[in-house]
């Protein structure tokens, strides 16, 4: 079989049949009145031409309502007129019936059209009979007019019903297609009115909010969905109203706390076709949690890289400084030695009653002592002297550190909170080194809170499974902590003034201090950092200005055999 018979093709074929029959009447008319015969040929030509138009007119125009009725009217007028001019009919009543049926065609109802046609065909037949035309010599040619009218009417009826059906199918097809798109899409979709009331929702949205079907949602408002998040509701409603007001699409992103998801929303106006005013708003919400999480992860990674880079630079700097400190210490101690020895010599030569000279000597010794002290600090920074890494209990160590600063804590009115893990923790380290680190951090914390109202020092100690990659934490053999290992974390938090953002990268640098010149050497944290390096541990800091600072000391729980001390 070739392609199926389309409606257009049917119309074309039926019309062709009608034209052939009508032409037969016109040309081979047995009737006497042949005065219209020439016009008859013109009629045939016009009629054939219109059928050509039917064959080639684009579907768009063929299915257009106005063109369709024009076409029906044209046929209704031209067809009977053609038959009439053939002189075959002999009765102008025939024309009248045709017009009546044509008008009935406009009713768009096939049954109605058929009843009318049969009714008028009966009357027409009766009138012909009354005039005695059905018994005369031309009886057959008159009688044939009645089925002809019926055939034409059926043809019109076909056109009407198929046209409507066709239109319905097309509408349904379009609706189904849109429905499929709306339901298959991965986005939440709804249409709301000015008050945020749902007029339509897609399945995705229905399911997302845990409803059974759309009907449970219709009539509810946005606020009822977000009832735990009033700010979010208010935000959505404001956007809906702005769409009504500005007649423009808006986009925004928001976080759904209840579901823990990020959404990108697009609110588009649905306009009244005649006035262009907004009468509904379509909201399309796309889940962008993945993208946001990826973005966040990326940011975190960049930050981590930045931090690691800084720490590496820091380590490098400290190593260089350590070497330099060693040489400087050596170079300064030799002249210091000469000063001491020289002073010893002088002391023996000063008469015991010369108090002034003796005082001067004392001052020189004091200055030399001070210089020697600085050198000692620098040197202990440069190379930590003898240490022994053993496993030792952490809690007594922390308690001992707090006991050492007990007086300072009392004097400053600091409240100490100990938040240790219930299990007694053991760390791999050197007692003196760890004491040095924690003492330093606790003293710093107390200093940072000196001018603060709330003075709370919190010391936390807990075991943590290593899960995230960080500075010296990862999978490389160089890393101190491997993913999957346990590490012991000591957090020392204060409610102090915090560290200025610009200082965060500098605090572990040697000689960096924010304290007055005679109060701090600026070596405390850099020594702590170096000690942690020696112990295969890390020291990190988090700080918010005017809120407080937390230092995280991460220690090995087992002795690492691979890590050997460097110098």
């Amino acid at each position, binding site marked *: 079989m070739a392609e199926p018979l389309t409606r257009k093709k049917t119309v074309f074929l039926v019309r062709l049949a009608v034209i052939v029959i009508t032409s037969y009447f016109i040309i081979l008319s047995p009737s006497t009145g042949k005065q219209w015969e020439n016009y008859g040929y013109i009629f045939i030509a016009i009629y054939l031409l219109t059928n050509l138009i039917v064959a080639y007119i684009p579907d768009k125009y063929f299915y257009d309502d106005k063109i369709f009725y024009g076409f029906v009217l044209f046929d209704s007028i031209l067809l009977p007129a053609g038959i009439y001019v053939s002189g075959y009919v002999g009765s102008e009543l025939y024309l009248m019936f045709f017009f009546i049926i044509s008008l009935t065609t406009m009713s768009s109802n096939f049954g109605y059209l058929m009843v009318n046609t049969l009714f008028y065909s009966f009357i027409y037949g009766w009138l012909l009979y009354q005039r005695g035309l059905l018994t005369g010599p031309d009886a057959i040619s008159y009688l044939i007019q009645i089925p002809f009218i019926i055939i034409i009417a059926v043809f019109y009826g076909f056109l009407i019903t198929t046209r409507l059906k066709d239109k319905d199918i097309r509408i349904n097809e379009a609706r189904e297609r849109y429905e499929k798109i709306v339901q298959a899409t991965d986005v939440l979709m709804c249409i709301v009115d000015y008050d945020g009331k749902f007029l339509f929702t897609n399945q995705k949205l229905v399911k997302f909010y845990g409803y059974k079907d759309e009907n449970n949602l219709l009539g509810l408002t946005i606020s009822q969905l977000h009832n735990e998040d009033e700010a979010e509701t208010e935000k959505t409603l404001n956007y809906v109203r702005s769409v009504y007001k500005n007649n423009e699409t808006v986009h925004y992103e928001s976080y759904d706390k209840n579901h823990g998801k990020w959404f990108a929303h697009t609110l588009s106006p649905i306009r009244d076709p005649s006035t262009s005013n907004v009468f509904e708003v379509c909201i399309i919400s796309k889940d962008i949690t993945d993208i946001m999480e990826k973005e966040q992860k990326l940011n975190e990674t960049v930050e981590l890289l930045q931090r690691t880079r800084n720490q590496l630079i820091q380590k490098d700097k400290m190593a260089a400084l350590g070497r330099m400190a060693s040489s400087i210490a050596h170079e300064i*101690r030799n002249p210091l030695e000469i000063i001491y*020895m020289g002073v*010893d010599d002088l002391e023996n030569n000063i008469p015991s009653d010369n108090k002034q000279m003796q005082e001067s000597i004392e001052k020189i010794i004091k200055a030399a002592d001070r210089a020697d002290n600085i050198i000692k600090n620098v*040197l*202990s920074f440069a190379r930590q*002297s*003898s240490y022994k890494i053993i496993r030792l209990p952490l809690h007594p160590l922390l308690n001992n550190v707090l006991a050492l600063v007990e007086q300072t804590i009392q004097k400053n009115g600091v409240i100490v909170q100990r938040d240790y893990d219930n299990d007694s923790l053991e760390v791999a380290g050197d007692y003196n080194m760890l004491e040095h680190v924690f003492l330093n951090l606790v003293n710093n914390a107390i200093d940072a809170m000196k001018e603060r109202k709330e003075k709370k020092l919190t010391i936390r100690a807990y075991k943590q499974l290593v899960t995230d990659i960080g500075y010296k934490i990862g999978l490389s053999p160089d890393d101190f902590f491997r993913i999957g290992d346990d590490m012991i974390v000591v957090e020392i938090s204060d409610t102090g003034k915090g560290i200025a953002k610009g200082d965060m990268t500098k605090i572990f640098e040697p000689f960096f201090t924010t304290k007055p010149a005679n109060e701090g050497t600026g070596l405390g944290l850099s020594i702590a950092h170096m000690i942690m390096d020696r112990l295969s541990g890390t020291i990190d800091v988090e700080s918010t200005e005017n809120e407080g600072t937390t230092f995280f000391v991460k220690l090995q729980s087992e002795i690492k055999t691979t890590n050997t001390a460097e110098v």
Partner: protein
Amino acid sequence: MSEKIRVLIIDDEVDFCYFVQKNLTRDGRFNILVATNGKDGIELAENEIPDIILLDLFMPDMPGEDVAAALQENITTAGIPILFVTALATNDDIANRDENKIGNNYIMPKPVRTKKLIETILDILGRS
């Protein structure tokens, strides 16, 4: 009158040598010999056989450890106790003197004052 303690100082820091010599001589119990480089020091030690040698670790011609090794290889000087006086050591290093011996030798951080130096020398000699 008892014999004086013969101390050999090997140190490139001339002024240090000068003051040690002066202060220790004044004390009366010491006889001081001075060498300002490693080579002279070894030679002087062989010739004079001092009771104790104060040795610097960092010297331009040879490191103190090498001087000490050379002295110990030589039978005539092998028994002389050596006290390293160095600017590189810290108090922690000598917290336990026995552990901080370099071989049979002792170590003392600079700077040191005369009194302490004398005490240390006497201590070492009293022990050995």
